[in-house]
């Protein structure tokens, strides 16, 4: 819950609440990525993060990896989509400077949903016999105990992130945030020990008490702190509010290919940003 129910945090305060080496869950592009908080995290010099992408990531993961904030990345995929491969992610995995835990999107969702329920594991169809399954020592195959004939099923341990971090559309003075239909954020926030969010605009009222918003709201009981951050997903999109900044992303995809280009990008858009 927020401080005293009357004040919002600053973006830099939010970043200060993310400890080094924590398990940090972040949503996919267009799922409400807090790029404002991501830049603040880099400025604060967070390091050794275990970054869990729910279930994929793009610019956010690439920036955090390039800036040396990430020890381990667990993901369904990291890509800049039509702007190309995520250049810092690619280099870091190829050179071994970041540990990668290759997963698959439904496995990440299921492991978080197990944590939502406080269940020790989730059972899932498919996946058995792939190299994805073979290289995961933490996954187990059992025989379906309810079947009369052999029926192997994959078990995944629950994933409980230390923190879920995302960008909501609206926030109110009760600590509630409205994410609309971005259920990835709900799953991550419910599964995690605590959650932090930036939000696009202030809602004058109580989102949980308002029938029009309640279904798309994450209640303040899950939220440790929230911060107002207009255009907080930029240069990514916040559907319903603004599209992505394609020119910017295209320029980043090019700059990120070299260490010098990436450093220049950080200096201009991250370190040089006036919070």
């Amino acid at each position, binding site marked *: 819950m927020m401080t005293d129910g009357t004040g919002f945090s600053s973006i830099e305060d939010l970043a200060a609440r993310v400890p080094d080496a924590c398990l940090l869950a972040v949503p996919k592009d267009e799922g409400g990525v807090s790029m404002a908080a991501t830049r603040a995290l880099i400025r604060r010099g967070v390091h050794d993060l275990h970054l869990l992408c729910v279930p994929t990531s793009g610019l956010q993961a690439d920036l955090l990896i390039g800036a040396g904030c990430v020890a381990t990345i667990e993901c369904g995929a990291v890509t800049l989509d039509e702007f190309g491969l995520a250049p810092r*992610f690619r280099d870091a995995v190829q050179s071994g400077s970041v540990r990668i835990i*290759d997963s698959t999107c439904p496995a990440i969702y299921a492991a978080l949903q197990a944590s939502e329920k406080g269940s020790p594991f989730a059972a899932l169809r498919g996946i058995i016999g*792939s190299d994805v399954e073979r290289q995961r020592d933490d996954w187990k195959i059992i025989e379906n105990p309810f079947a009369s004939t052999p029926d192997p099923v994959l078990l995944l341990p629950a994933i409980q992130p230390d923190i879920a971090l995302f960008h909501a559309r609206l926030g109110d003075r009760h600590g509630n945030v409205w994410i609309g239909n971005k259920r*990835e954020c709900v799953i991550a926030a419910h599964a995690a020990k605590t959650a932090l969010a930036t939000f696009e605009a202030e809602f004058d009222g109580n989102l949980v008490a308002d029938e029009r918003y309640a279904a798309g709201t994450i209640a303040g009981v899950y939220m440790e702190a929230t911060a107002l951050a207009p255009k907080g997903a930029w240069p990514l999109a916040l559907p319903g509010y603004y599209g992505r900044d394609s020119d910017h992303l295209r320029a980043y995809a090019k700059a990120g290919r070299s260490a010098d280009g990436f450093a220049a990008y950080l200096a201009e858009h991250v370190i040089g940003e006036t919070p």
Partner: protein
Amino acid sequence: MTAWNREEALICVLADMMQGARGVAVGATSPIPASAALLAQARSGGRTKAMILGGVQHGPFNDGGPELFDRAAQGRIDVFFLGGGQIDGEGNVNLVGTGPYPRADARFPGNFGAPYLYFLVPRVILFREEHSKRVLVPKVDFVSAPGSSPDGLHRPGGPHALVTGRAVFLFDRGARRFRLQSLHPGETLAGVRDETGFTFDVPDEVTETPPPAADDLVLLRGPMRDQIGEIYPEFVAGR
């Protein structure tokens, strides 16, 4: 009959493979399969439902990322498209990278939902425009999703076809091999063999991939142009 282009022909070939499907799911960054799914939807009078993942207008889902996967496991998605950095002759797909694992020589984005959907969606169409020995390899370096599974494993899904910029193959699940279905105009069997890293079966008579039907071109260039343009402005502008 008006002239048609390569993309239009591929869209129609893929749409033909969705006959009778109810749910068709396509990844957001695949304009040709997405256009094909929308064409199949238009042809079917709405019985076929296209789900363009990431598309704002064309997703019938509202419950977030897990919903597609949950529906697939329930058997309610009939067709899915899959690309792949590498595809081999047994229908194995690699979305992770070439060379050793995990420190790949060339790292790809990652598995996405492939290790799951390939098992559960009955008709998975492998679509990759690039038809070269770089992509179509004898054996994938990493099996993101296997083309087939041992008996006794729950596996209603798997590869149905492989469509490239040169040819159409159908997958024979019993033989665990691809069989050439048709060559695109201008392609020869010898040329396609030269560019394919795995062996495949060939019928006695190899046909040419059919041109788009006039009705389909009317749809693609008319009512569907705006629909596709909403999702892929650059793709429509380039056509």
